[in-house]
């Protein structure tokens, strides 16, 4: 059986990246991952006996994020706006691509939590609808609806961005 220390050494970096993608806030991600890992350690005998301990821990992280205090969530949106404003005019193709990605990153940060979690699990973790449903504790249908709404928002934002860029 994998020891907790070995698990932590092996997976912590990946879990931190996942949590950072979820929260759009590296420090909140750190808090959440630390908290979850301490809890996981105290139940490690049970978690390590599971088929995929890392999935379980990922689920703990997602739940922790979804239930995180409202106060923290407000910060996401503030940072999203400031990122949007910080984007300078495009000067060339790589810069334009960069700006486009930055704008997208900022828009993802403004998504409602469950939608954002679904998007991250889909596009970053490459999970299927069923896998996402398990993590979020809802049906696959709900997952599809989260993703389609999120995509709607993000696509609308992307075309706004393109239009703005075209008229610069």
């Amino acid at each position, binding site marked *: 059986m994998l020891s907790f220390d070995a698990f932590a050494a092996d997976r912590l970096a990946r879990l*931190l990246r996942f949590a950072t993608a979820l929260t759009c806030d590296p420090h909140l991600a750190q808090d959440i991952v630390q908290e979850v890992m301490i809890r996981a350690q105290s139940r490690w005998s049970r978690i390590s006996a599971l088929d995929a301990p890392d999935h379980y821990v990922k689920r703990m992280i997602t739940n922790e994020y979804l239930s995180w205090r409202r106060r923290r969530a407000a910060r996401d949106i503030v940072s999203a706006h400031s990122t949007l404003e910080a984007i300078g005019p495009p000067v060339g193709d790589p810069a334009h691509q960069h700006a486009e990605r930055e704008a997208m990153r900022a828009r993802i940060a403004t998504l409602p939590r469950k939608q954002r979690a679904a998007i991250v699990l889909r596009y970053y973790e490459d999970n299927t609808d069923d896998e996402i449903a398990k993590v979020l504790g809802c049906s696959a249908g709900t997952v599809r609806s989260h993703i389609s709404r999120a995509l709607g928002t993000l696509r609308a934002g992307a075309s706004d961005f393109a239009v703005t860029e075209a008229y610069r």
Partner: protein
Amino acid sequence: MTLDKTESLIRDAITDQAARAVDADTVLRELRKSSRRTRPAVLVFAAAAVVIAVVSAVVIPGLVRGERPAQVGTPDTVTKIVDQTILVMGMDRFAHTDVVMLVRLTAAGLTAISVPRDAFVEIPGHGKGKANSAYERGRLAAEQRGLDGPAAMKAGAETAMATFGSLTGVPIDHYAVIDMSAIASLVDAVGGVEVCLNAATKDPTSGANFTAGSQTLAGAQALAFVRQRHHLPNGDLDRVKRQQALFKALATKLGSSDLRPFVGAVRDHVVTDMDLVGLAELGSKRAVRTGMVPVGAEVNSPSAGFGFEMSAEKVHSYVTEMFGSGEQGGGGDTPGPACVD
């Protein structure tokens, strides 16, 4: 999965976001440190538990006579708790009882003995486990048997009573489970507490941001005060001192406050099988002393993580001594306010 242009952009953007993660080695070091430490704020919750027990015993009967505090169990019995052993547990939001105390009220005062959360104990019906998991294991098992919320909580408390009764060799008569998130409202309820710091300190993780010298802390600040574990000269040792400082501050404040708001704050956060109305006879018994059961070697098993081995023999004789020695000192809190780091 084939992605269109926007989806590719989304993936790239999320990857960018993920790349902003903090360094894993830093977090790993933190984790290794924290696994060898008491969880933040455990002791103060223990302290608060004692204060709550005292206040419950002393004050509630006078204020809520005829009105029943939140409880599960046997609401219609009037409980006499003198010379009875009460299991007081402080529960975090993950249902771990990170505070476990055996409290005994005698004519001379109140004695509270803590069991560290990481003590490996025999949990009847569940094998060996950490002290802080006894309640939740019992509760979950009851839920699986189809019991509803309060009944499952009662079953969890009973599992914990059996666990700590056998660990200490003292039969446990009653239980009180306290929601530890109550600490901030408790401090606010007494209008803040006075503490003194040797140096100014700031720590974004806990939200601590204090100046040097004497100051009054409101509830949220008091939480940060006892949760801070970074940027302290002696790490955990300093935190323990802070927890004791907050305990004394709370106790001092209680002596001079209008206790009504405090009682209100307490009442909503306690689940107990005691009818607190029966406690009026304890009137003026205020002497409190605290101690901790002796722990054995640190073990770090791959299956259960870090913890302490416990020697039943040593625990039994310690508890017998503490509960037996009544009014003598020994392990009591030293009086007087002192500055901490």
